[in-house]
């Protein structure tokens, strides 16, 4: 699926300063050496299972299914992973790889804080130094996650350039990496950036679709008809889609953050509103103006508040293999509340974007159809913000 230079169709590539080129080449060589190495695979598997609580459950949401009155709905419970989101899968994989490369120091960007927390967690677990870069706007929205990272010994650096959100945190990480490379691994959190990151992150998240396949076959004797996941950079979605790409009958749907609507400027729906560009090391689709200036994007969800999308999603979009829909803040908040009261599961506001789409399509489908939706994270971190959205001020 990827050619040697990390292209997905015309997307991807390595648009980075020369200073970083040998670092990404070294990373690619290390990944090629270890990805099929039995020792490395066994070590990662043991951490995933014994530390991070994999495999995650595929839960039949019976009350949601009955309530919506259509397709059978299963939830892929990445929220039950240690640290409460899918991010731990990739963080463990990359940190173990970095250790084998002799790196002692990790840097990472974070939006909602979930990837930052996952990176801080593996750094504590493996005894590595860790620095997380986070937009100042996001630090305010996700104060609890900032505390969690600091608690685990990570230094959190506020980024106040640009819009003070995820894209600025990624830019700052790239700048930091050019300053200190020899002992430092940039633990990128999504399936984006320069090659080989989109491939590495995809592979470390592909456990999700590998498990969905097995679990759905065990429960239903067949594959699902729909796999639905939220998309910012797109790591939980590519992980959920990957092992179904060759199964043409399984429909793959990514849910972008429309913010206040795709007809407004306050949106983060890259494939629905963006255009081709080159940014953060990759060619893909980006929200930008006519001169290629990256647009300030908006979503209630700090984790989806990113002006680009991973190159493999751009390619799945171009080929029509996956469909990408846009979900507004309002729809996501409704879904956040719906799942909480219907199933007793509080989803991350990011994941609520995927749930919102399922709430639209499930009632239109016959009852023998199977929809799997990835619950990429738990929503405890969002409770204060959701209360505020409904006009209630609560103390975190």
């Amino acid at each position, binding site marked *: 699926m990827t050619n040697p230079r990390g292209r997905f169709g015309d997307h991807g590539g390595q*648009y980075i*300063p*020369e*200073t970083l080129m040998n670092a990404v080449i070294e990373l690619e060589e290390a990944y090629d050496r270890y990805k099929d190495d039995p020792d490395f695979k066994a070590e990662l598997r043991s951490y995933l299972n014994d530390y991070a609580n994999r495999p995650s459950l595929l839960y039949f949401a019976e009350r949601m299914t009955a309530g919506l009155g259509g397709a059978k709905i299963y939830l892929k419970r990445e929220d039950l992973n240690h640290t409460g989101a899918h991010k731990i899968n990739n963080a463990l994989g990359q940190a173990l790889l970095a250790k084998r490369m002799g790196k002692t120091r990790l840097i990472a960007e974070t939006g909602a804080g979930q990837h930052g927390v996952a990176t801080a967690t593996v750094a504590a677990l493996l005894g590595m130094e860790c620095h997380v870069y986070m937009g100042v706007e996001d630090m305010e929205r996700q104060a609890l996650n900032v505390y969690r990272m600091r608690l685990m010994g990570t230094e959190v650096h506020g980024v106040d350039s640009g819009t003070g959100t995820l894209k600025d945190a990624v830019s700052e990480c790239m700048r930091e990496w*050019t300053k200190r490379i020899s002992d430092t691994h940039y633990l990128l959190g999504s399936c984006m950036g320069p090659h080989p990151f989109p491939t590495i992150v995809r592979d470390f998240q592909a456990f999700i679709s590998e498990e969905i396949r097995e679990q759905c076959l065990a429960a239903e004797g067949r594959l699902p008809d729909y796999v639905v996941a939220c998309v910012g950079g797109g790591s939980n979605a590519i992980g959920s889609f990957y092992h179904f790409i060759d199964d043409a009958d399984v429909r793959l749907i990514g849910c972008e953050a429309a913010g206040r609507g795709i007809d407004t400027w306050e949106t983060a729906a890259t494939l629905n509103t963006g255009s081709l*560009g080159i940014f953060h090391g990759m060619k893909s689709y980006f929200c930008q103006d006519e001169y290629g*200036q990256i647009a300030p994007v908006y979503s209630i969800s700090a984790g989806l508040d990113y002006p680009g999308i991973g190159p493999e999603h751009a390619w799945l979009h171009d080929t029509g293999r996956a469909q990408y829909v846009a979900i507004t803040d309002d729809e996501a908040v409704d879904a956040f509340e719906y799942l909480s009261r219907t199933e007793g599961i509080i989803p991350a506001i990011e994941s609520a974007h995927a749930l919102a789409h399922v709430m639209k399509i499930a009632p239109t489908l016959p009852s023998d159809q199977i929809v799997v939706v990835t619950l990429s994270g738990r929503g405890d971190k969002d409770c204060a913000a959701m209360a505020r959205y409904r006009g209630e001020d609560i103390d975190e």
Partner: protein
Amino acid sequence: MSNESIRAAFESGNGKAFIPFITCGDPDLEATKALVFALQDAGADIIELGIPFSDPTAEGPVIQGANLRALSGGVTTDAILEMVAEIRAQVRIPLVFMTYGNIVYHYGIERFCERAEDAGIDGLILPDTPYEEKDEFAPACAAHGIAYISLIAPTSDERVAMIAAEAQGFVYCVSSLGVTGTRDAITTDIDALVARVRSVTDVPVAVGFGISSPEQAAAMAAKSDGAIVGSALVKLVAEHGAEAADPVARQARKLAEAVHAL
């Protein structure tokens, strides 16, 4: 042809070039015009003109600030191309653009190069487009007589020969790890990097990133064919705004004299 104009610029002094950088439209294009003339008069051999980008990932805080001021002022790629075309006849020295891949790609690579050629631009530097991706940009540059200027870095090691062998215009040698911005000391073995370049090409090599004082500029130019100074001058623009031409010229003259005195 730009390779010739750039080579001539390196040879015009005593074989050493002083190359200042400014961001177009910081704080507006009238100020940029005045700065170009002031830099030429101060002894610049080539001028690097930055086309601002919203998210300049290779820049430190000083040039990030310049990008922000320029974009807040409403400058666009089209307006910059018009400005260059307007002043080109009065500028004797080569002008090269420095910007990010997306600015050129989104404008249309062919369309950008065509208009840059019409405006009289001699070279293009894209700090986020390494050797592996240059085939997307370099052929269009060549077709329009624009030198596609490549960068080498302290981490380039064995890549230097590969990059230098295809170098156009001049080789931009990044002095240190990290982003643009002034530094107290440059600890990279510049001699070794330059020797690697010279073993495969006679294209001139200029050193940039972190050079602020005339002493540093002279030291870097002594090891290579020239010194590039950006942040130290852009700081003066930040301080003096539309009135920056005089203070920038004063500092540029000191830098040019230090480089040319070698």
